[in-house]
């Protein structure tokens, strides 16, 4: 029973950390219409920053600052945000599908750096001994998991509430105006690109924070954690849960992670141990299929606003209707 509770806490902790990434993506996509296919990259930046700031000295690698965890997490937000600012300044004016390809490429490059620049990131071996919050409790699995859950829940909760606020604020309205009709927004004197940049930076900072949190819970990070599989999972979560909607982001994260976690043991049960590795691929197939199915059948996802997606759906009709004599 206690084991179950412990597992449940562990499950929810991970699910919520993904939920945090989704919240970040939601600002970019759901609110502002930015198609970021490089999620994994920003998560990685945050994770590595926090790891470098908080781990003890290691030979041959930058770091060893041994700073408190909170500093690491703040640092993570800062570097992810700065990276986003730099990248965004160059690329945000590109049209949506070019932005997708570019951010896709960025994530690949970031992963490349993580694998190869050993002096900075520890190379393929990654970074270990990342301090865990409540590490002292490591002996007691239940207490440990519950404490971790408490931390993630609090952080996610704060971010969620803050974002809800922000969404309803004038700033949020400007973002939506830009998403819906950039020309009109421009005529109101709002510099669309500058607002987009702010949304991009904020979203990426949150992704970086989530990356840091994930790193600190597992205690170890490696480049292979940040492949496109993460980007894919997070997008699937947001699409399934409902883009444009913060609650949808969290719901999607929990649901998809549940699907993922449930299919794990299912696969273990069906397939013999030697086949585990290849069978794990089926999990991704399942999620991919569900994601595409949702896009076909209910594009706004479970909780998404019809309004968010309807702009894209009716775009074709709208363009045609514009040419009338």
């Amino acid at each position, binding site marked *: 029973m206690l084991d179950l509770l412990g597992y449940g806490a562990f499950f929810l902790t991970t699910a919520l950390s993904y939920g945090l990434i989704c919240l970040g993506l939601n600002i970019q996509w759901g609110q502002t219409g930015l198609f970021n296919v490089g999620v994994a990259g920003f998560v990685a930046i945050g994770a590595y920053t926090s790891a470098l700031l908080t781990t003890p000295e290691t030979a041959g690698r930058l770091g060893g600052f041994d700073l408190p965890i909170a500093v690491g997490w703040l640092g993570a937000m800062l570097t992810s945000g700065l990276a986003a600012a730099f990248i965004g300044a160059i690329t945000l004016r590109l049209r949506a599908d070019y932005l997708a390809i570019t951010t896709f490429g960025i994530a690949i490059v970031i992963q490349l750096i993580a694998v190869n620049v050993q002096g900075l990131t520890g190379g393929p071996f990654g970074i270990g001994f990342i301090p865990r919050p409540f590490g002292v409790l490591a002996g007691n699995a239940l207490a440990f998991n519950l404490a971790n859950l408490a931390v993630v829940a609090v952080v996610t909760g704060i971010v969620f509430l803050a974002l809800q606020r922000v969404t309803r604020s004038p700033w949020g309205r400007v973002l939506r105006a830009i998403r819906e009709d950039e020309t009109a927004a421009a005529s109101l004197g709002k510099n669309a690109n500058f607002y987009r940049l702010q949304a991009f930076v904020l979203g990426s900072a949150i992704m970086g924070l989530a990356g840091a949190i994930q790193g600190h819970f597992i205690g170890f990070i490696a480049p292979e954690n940040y492949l496109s599989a993460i980007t894919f999972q997070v997008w699937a979560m947001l699409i399934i849960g409902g883009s444009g909607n913060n609650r949808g982001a969290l719901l999607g994260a929990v649901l998809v992670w549940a699907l993922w976690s449930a299919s794990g043991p299912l696969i273990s049960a069906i397939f013999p141990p030697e086949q585990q590795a290849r069978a794990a691929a089926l999990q991704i197939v399942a999620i*991919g299929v569900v994601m595409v199915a949702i896009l076909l059948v209910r594009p706004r996802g479970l909780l998404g606003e019809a309004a968010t997606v309807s702009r894209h759906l009716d775009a074709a009709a709208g363009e045609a209707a514009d040419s009338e004599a």
Partner: protein
Amino acid sequence: MNLQFLADGILVGAMIGLGAIGVTLTYSILGFANFVHGEFITWGTYAALTLTTGIGLLVGQDIAPLGPFSVGWPVLVAGLIAMVLTGLLALLLDLIVFRRLRRHGNAIIMVMASFGASMALRSLVEFIFTSEPAYFSRELQIAMPLGFGIRLTPDQMLMLGLTLVLVVAMQLLIAKTQLGRAMRAVSENPALAQVAGVDTGRVVQVTWMLGGALACAAGIMAGITVQIRPFMGFDLLLPLFSAAILGGIGSVPGAVIGGLIVGLGESLAVQLIGANYRAAAAFLLLIAVLLVRPTGLFGRRD
């Protein structure tokens, strides 16, 4: 002076260029960046591999490779069949996924769906064939010296030759045939094309088939000269997109030249910085094009 890196660059570039033709055609006619294109490469190659094994079993005996090459006629036959099958796979995907989205959605949703579909397809390959690399043939090839320090294996030379043939064929198709005119028309203005009598639905279908078949060809070449693995198509996505955009979306010669530039860029990067940073070359070229001249070398101003 050792110019081997030039040869390497052209080899890789030829393959990228061939794949990029499919990308540029589907991008310009269907209107979206198709992430599934990488999986056409992968699935096509694995299909060819499976068919080759099948043919081998049917024939019963060991089939000797053709001439100086590492593969025999089964690979050729399997390759042709696989190209058709991959074209059909592309058509199937359009039927199930993209046609619906095209009617109601816009480009972004289609890119998203293509991203999800590509992950599902790739993982399916991984499940069926595992992530172990596979090969068409275990024959070792001797690289033959051609002067200036360049050495190429017979396989590589064959691949270059075949690519040239396919590229010329595609360019002739696009520039000189009625189908090619129809494709160019639909890519520029689908409504006007309809009014001029073009069955745009049919053109879309043909585009998918051609794109799939060319992707398969590119993949088989990579499979013969390098290796076959589930991520082979995905790893080519960034170079493919870069090449297509660099050359100008919609231009067949552009895609090929773009491919060569990306290939040479990668090979240069390997020379100067090291093999690890191959992928970064394609990315940097992409960024450069998008910032300086987004329509690419031969592209239309949209």
